[in-house]
């Protein structure tokens, strides 16, 4: 089976400060990879390099594109990479306001990617928006309201709808439940798990919250100081950690 994403030697530093170093892994279709570590471990740098938001110093990100098979997204042209970013990929930010247009209605937020790829039928775009609001459990009656009037949990669900409306195959998530109340987090995690299953999504989730990866991730990478110190099936890593640092993480000794 061809990996959907094959990451090799991903390295990025900031001057003398190391972001991430020599990270390699494969992600298969339908698989969810969790990346955990403390802040400063390089997990966010890695995610942004993978998603094309940062240019890595070295390494490749081979993605199995729909049209042309495996391509290195690091070296493909910027228009191609941006097109991928708004069609077959999705990126869910921790802060919903980073991933939404706060001055645009919920329907406009969900419809933007459709319009970006050429949909020119208002009724059709609106139909998709209503459908997606329903799928993320937002009342369709809120379709013309701006996200500033939404609760934090609703904003995050709207961001997810906005991202998934084009039927992407790969979703990058950066602390998707960060900053939300515990009860709101639980509902969002249930929703995400359902969408991942129903749509057969592949995902890479960066988080410091082990409960998130326990629920969502098939496999886990543990990062420390820019390097992967341990990786394996989620249950194995969390229940039987091998690396001393992972053992600390799991025992909650570290306040991450």
């Amino acid at each position, binding site marked *: 089976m061809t990996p959907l994403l094959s990451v090799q030697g991903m390295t990025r530093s900031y001057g003398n400060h190391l972001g991430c170093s020599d990270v390699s892994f494969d992600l298969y279709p339908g698989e969810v990879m969790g990346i955990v570590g403390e802040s400063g471990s390089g997990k966010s740098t890695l995610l942004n390099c993978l998603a094309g938001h940062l240019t890595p110093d070295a390494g490749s990100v081979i993605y199995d594109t729909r049209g042309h098979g495996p391509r290195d997204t690091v070296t493909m042209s910027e228009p191609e990479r941006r097109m991928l970013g708004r069609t077959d990929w999705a990126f869910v930010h921790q802060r919903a306001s980073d991933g939404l*247009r706060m001055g645009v209605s919920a329907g406009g937020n969900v419809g933007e990617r459709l319009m*970006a*790829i050429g949909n020119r039928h*208002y009724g059709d775009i609106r139909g998709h928006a209503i459908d997606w609001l329903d799928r993320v459990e937002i009342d369709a009656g809120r379709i*013309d309201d701006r996200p500033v009037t939404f609760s934090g949990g609703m904003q995050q669900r709207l961001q997810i709808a906005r991202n998934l409306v084009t039927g992407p195959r790969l979703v990058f998530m950066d602390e998707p439940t960060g900053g939300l109340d515990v009860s709101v987090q639980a509902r969002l995690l249930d929703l995400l798990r359902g969408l991942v299953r129903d749509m057969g999504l592949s995902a890479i989730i960066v988080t410091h919250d082990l409960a998130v990866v326990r629920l969502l991730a098939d496999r886990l990478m543990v990062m420390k100081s820019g390097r992967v110190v341990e990786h394996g099936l989620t249950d194995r890593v969390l229940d039987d950690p091998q690396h001393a640092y992972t053992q600390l993480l799991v025992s909650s000794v570290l306040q991450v």
Partner: protein
Amino acid sequence: MSGYNFAYLDEQTKRMIRRAILKALAIPGYQVPFASREMPMPYGWGTGGVQVSAAVLTPEDRFKVIDQGADDTTNAVSIRRFFERTAGIATTTATRDATVIQTRHRIPEEPLREGQILVYQVPIPEPLRFLEPRESETRKMHSLAEYGLMHVKLYEDISRHGHIATTYAYPVKVEERYVMDPSPIPKFDNPKLSDCAAIQLFGAGREQRIYALPPYTTVASLDFDDHPFDPSRADHPCGLCGSVETYLDEVIMDDAGGRMFVCSDTDHCETRQNAGYRGKDAG
């Protein structure tokens, strides 16, 4: 104002502006940066248009200025006088006699012809500014022709008003490439942008941008398949000349609330009246 160079600007500045104009003509709809100069008038008075006019005027030109369709507003009169004094050129209010027309907010009703230049005063040249304030990002969107955001704006209009409520500065796509702000002309005028025989130049002074449409450029107003562009017009004939094809202004007649609709293009309306056309309110 003696002591100034022809049309106020020095020759070197005019050459710089002409280079920007030529580049703009070569890439229709693309916003070319230029080093805007201080002009002896406030920005709101169309210094971008004035600089473009100064760069294209020659001593043989006949110059017309319109503001909201009229030749006699303060703004139009001042700009016309400015070039009478600094360039000593002939001026006119007749669209057909003019070789260079500077305009704010309208395109003349009379079809323009080859050899004429229409210069627009532009306040905000960036059509994407409404939803994306970052200049670095809008530049990238133009270079990659990523224009989904323009339709988000139209989507918002329809969702809020039931139809595309944008009536001025209605965005267009030029030769199926660049999305352009046609300046705050009424959308009624948008069809005149396309396939126009004259050269159309757009100058934004404060924002330091020039863009252009060479003659016979295809210009399409953005819309949705199920909400097609509609260059709507008030459903009245002109009270003075009776035209049912022109863009109308509503004029309050008296304290009793009497009102009438008249052509916004005063030259066009007077030309028709002189030719014997009469509306119901004509004396």
